[in-house]
């Protein structure tokens, strides 16, 4: 599948489509004849079945829900009111803002450090998993299967579960935080990279081969350029996820925005909590904008 070249801005749909199993072409409308996009009105066979399955699953989940102690706390409604009104009056005192900026930096730093580890581990594993460097043979299949299983294991476990495990293993160490982000994100980045390298359009690669390029040269001059925009966008999206993860990792003793949020909640100081939450929102929006700028220039 060719990388989607129509979206000039960062399109999340493109990012999510980047993993195989999603019909990438459908999201940007590339190569999808209009006829297939419009017959959904009558919900033909397969789609009707799917709708039915999803609706039944949701009804099952509601029925299976067991609420022994009632839905809402005794003071729940009051708490909702306080949390909502605090949203409009966040604590913007200079003292708190200074602390929150420091916390935001801690959170961002752990996210970036975790991502560097994820890239350092995920890129080599992803190249091995794609099997584009070796030519044929059992050895190639073995390497691919090994790299793929390792990547799958890395990404099967959520970053916070990794964090809990690493803290249990290492104690409260910065290594636990960096590894907790780096390991699962290496698994995801490696998989996306492998798929994108394999899915590079064949014609330019064959042209390189006929002009005498080795597979390594084909990788760098053929496959990498065609995969670059999507993989870079995906890495940025993962950085955004890493910021959220790093914020939450403070629960395991790393400081940062999450710790600020929990201590504010412990004191029922919802105004302070929203200030920290807004800092998180600002980081996420900033990464989003930077990513959109880079993607636009990579695709132009």
């Amino acid at each position, binding site marked *: 599948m060719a990388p989607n070249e129509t979206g000039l801005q960062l399109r*999340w*749909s493109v990012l*999510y489509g980047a*993993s195989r199993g*999603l*019909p990438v072409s459908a*999201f940007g409308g590339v190569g999808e004849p209009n006829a297939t996009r*419009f017959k*959904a009105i009558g919900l033909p066979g*397969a*789609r009707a079945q*799917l709708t039915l399955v*999803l609706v039944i*699953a*949701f009804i099952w*989940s509601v029925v299976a*829900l*067991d*609420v*022994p*102690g*009632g*839905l*809402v*706390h005794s003071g729940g*409604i009051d*708490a909702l009111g306080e*949390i909502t009104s605090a949203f409009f009056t966040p604590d913007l005192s200079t003292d708190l803002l200074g602390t929150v900026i420091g916390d935001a*930096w*801690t959170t*961002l*730093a752990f996210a*970036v*450090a975790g991502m*560097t580890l994820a890239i350092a581990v995920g890129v080599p594993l992803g190249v091995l998993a794609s099997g584009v460097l070796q030519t044929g043979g059992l050895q190639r299949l073995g390497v691919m299967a090994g790299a793929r299983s390792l990547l799958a294991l890395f990404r*099967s*476990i*959520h970053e*916070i*579960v990794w964090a809990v*495990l690493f803290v249990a*293993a*290492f*104690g*409260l*160490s*910065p290594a636990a935080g960096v590894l907790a982000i780096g390991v699962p994100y290496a698994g995801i980045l490696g998989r996306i990279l492998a798929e994108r390298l394999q899915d590079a359009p064949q014609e330019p690669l064959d042209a390189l081969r006929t002009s005498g390029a080795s597979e390594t040269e084909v990788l760098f001059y053929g496959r990498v350029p065609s995969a670059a925009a999507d993989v870079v966008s995906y890495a940025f999206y993962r950085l955004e996820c890493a910021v*959220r*993860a790093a914020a*939450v990792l403070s629960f395991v003793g790393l*400081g940062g925005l*999450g710790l600020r*949020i929990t201590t504010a909640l412990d004191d029922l100081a919802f105004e302070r909590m929203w200030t920290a*939450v807004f800092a*998180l*929102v600002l980081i*996420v929006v900033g990464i989003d904008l*930077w990513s959109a*700028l880079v993607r636009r*220039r990579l695709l132009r």
Partner: protein
Amino acid sequence: MNSLIRRRPFFVGSSLFLLFLVAASWARVFAQDTGGPGLLSTEAWRRAGDFMADLAGASESGSPAFAQWDAWRDALRLAGDTMVMSVLAAGMAAAGALATVAFASSNLAGRGWVGGRLLVAVVRAVYVLTRAVPELVWALIVVFILTPGILAGAVALAIHNFGVLGRLGAEIVEDIDEAPIASLKSSGAGRVQLLFYGVLPQVLPQFVTFLLYRWEVIVRTSVVVGLVAVAGLGYELRLDLAFFRYTDVALLLIVYVLLVWATDLVSIALRRLAR
């Protein structure tokens, strides 16, 4: 490559900033004092080795939890709770996103009048806010309002994923083909009819594909939310770790990974139906 050179100032600037950010971040990480062993100390790695041995049952007498049928049954029941939480969350998030997505799309709501554009901006701001805050933090807030349990966890997961699905949905809606809508309009269709006959049929297949993909993510995350929402595998994991029941931890991890893999397989099968 030529075109890369033409756009050089931006890439040079971006790369320099990135290098600076990475260097400063690692400096910050190494400076972090958590009171535990240092980042690369041998003490930290020795402890990690001990922990792995404990998971395999080195420090417990008697048969490890993952060799006991009763323990498996309990863990599978908790996995069922986790599954209920994830489906409930995906359903609520999808309903919320579908109900609001028309107001977040500039080609439907934001055309012409100022109020429409304002509405688009407000709904999109809500999407950004809900998705910027991680599920676990939403869970901490939600348990102030709802009784801790499966529902509280599901609501926390739903709030975050509402923002994610809303943003994805708005992008799909903005990419739709305008021709059938124009022809519906010219044959006198009202706004609601336009939505149901012009927009939704185009949007739903892609939306469902994303929803299934998000459901995989939600299953993974429901364990984390369970840590605070006092439900499912997550809460049990926390208890077992707190009481040093390491083989139980190992069992829960096995069940968790199996659950995630099973979810992926079901999701792939369902996505094939969506095409």
